[in-house]
């Protein structure tokens, strides 16, 4: 499940700073945890008194231990990277470029838009059928277990997601891709809503 072995990077050491980033990032994370996050978000300290008056490890015992162990490792990483700069050796170095981030951002926006569609279509459909006098429903919640309202949002949202991603991989969208997107959504609806009971497709488990 990883890249083929031959791909092991060649021009690694001019990007060696990425290992420094990892090291310093870890140190910053450890500091943030120990100074800000843990004190506010963990109910008991490193050690605590239990009911019998004995001292036992508290809820922060293990988190502090883990984060504290990160510190020497990160320091080692930084040191070994500084030393390895001139020659070869040292740890494998990776990097995250701006293009990578732009790509991730694009995927996030696409997913967010699809989720928005999932949430909006159902209520809109009900508004529409109420307007035309086909139904007299009090809202989406009341219809969130009746076909087709319960799966309408998912159908359009999932289709949008699949098609959007195909557009990204291929740089264009063929009419047949729309069919594939819709078919994927339809098959998933058939499995989860048709064949199985008490399974809720998005957004129905969060109303």
């Amino acid at each position, binding site marked *: 499940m990883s890249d083929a072995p031959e791909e092991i990077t060649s021009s690694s050491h001019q990007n060696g700073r990425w290992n420094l980033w990892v090291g310093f990032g870890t140190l910053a994370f450890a500091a943030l945890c120990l100074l800000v996050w843990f004190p506010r978000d963990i109910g008991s300290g490193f050690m605590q008194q*239990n009911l*019998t008056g004995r001292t036992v490890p508290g809820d922060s015992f293990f988190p502090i231990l883990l984060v504290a162990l990160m510190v020497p490792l990160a320091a080692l990483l930084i040191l070994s990277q500084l030393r390895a700069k001139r020659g070869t050796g040292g740890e494998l170095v990776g990097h995250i470029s701006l293009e990578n981030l732009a790509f991730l951002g694009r995927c996030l926006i696409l997913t967010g838009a699809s989720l928005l569609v999932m949430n909006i279509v159902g209520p809109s459909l009900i508004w529409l059928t109420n307007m035309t006098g086909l139904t007299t429903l*009090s809202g989406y*919640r009341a219809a969130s277990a009746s076909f087709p309202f319960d799966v309408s949002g998912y159908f359009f949202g999932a289709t949008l997601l699949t098609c959007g991603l195909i557009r990204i991989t291929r740089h264009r969208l063929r009419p047949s891709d729309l069919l594939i997107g819709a078919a994927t959504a339809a098959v998933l609806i058939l499995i989860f809503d048709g064949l199985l009971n*008490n399974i*809720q497709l998005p957004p129905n488990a969060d109303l």
Partner: protein
Amino acid sequence: MKSIIMVGASLAIFASPAFAEWKPDGPIRLWIGYGAGGGTDVQGRTLAKEIEALRGWKVIPENKAGDDGTVMSAQLKSEAPDGQTLGFAITTTYDFAPMNSDNLAPEDFTYITTTAGSQMAVLARADSGWNTLEDLQAAANGGEQIVWANWGTQVEAGAELVARGLGISVNHLRTEGGKGALNALVSMDANVGWGGGVQKPLVEAGVLKILASAETGPVALDPEKPTLKDIGVDLNLGYQYIITAPAGMPEEIREEIASVVAEILANPESETRQFIEKQYPPAPIVTQGEALRTQILSTYDANIEMMKVFDK
């Protein structure tokens, strides 16, 4: 005995059709405070199915596990009290857990009905040779190290109270759920532990033995054994399975839901009832309305009193 009378009483009060006015507007979501696959989950899902069959309401069970129902309850309390979001947990969730929680209070909820009760007991491995708490006491005084398996703060406090009552010292082992306590016993990581009901097959198989009941009366599996009260420890760790809703639910909705559940649990053919008879013997425990609310609030106060012992 008491429970059976309870069923009858509640039926007489609530099962009359005059109350069958309220109807949910859309599906009811039943939030089960425990993970999928456990005893609570099975009970909740069977009940959901039978409510659906009896009234034609759509009931969707959802698992929201964590920390003995408190994770579910913390989310439940901010839902609308319109009868379409219900919680299924145990009374401990409401009459003990709020003590250690910033975001739970007993007043945050409407208590609809209980369904079944625990069989809380002190357990030991059969090969320990102990038959009663006195044997345990003797072993401890003889220098044997006692490790007590507990799954939560309340039962750990209970274990400590029992130990103090017996005048012995024990080490407490915190386990993951009631099943974890049994595993710790069987794998010899602990030598005493609590069991709330899951111990049944292991006790019947002769692997574990009941030393005492922690209910107000004896436990069904071994009615010969004394209660903790009998031996001078004033402690009741029994709990019931309970259906709740956010606070402020209109009376008619509460009564309608309560009466449906009472009707199901009173029916000997009911799958839920049969499950309860097998798993939480001898019969369903149905407490509803004001009686239930009073029970929760007064137990909460009693529990606060109990825990004060440890403040010193």
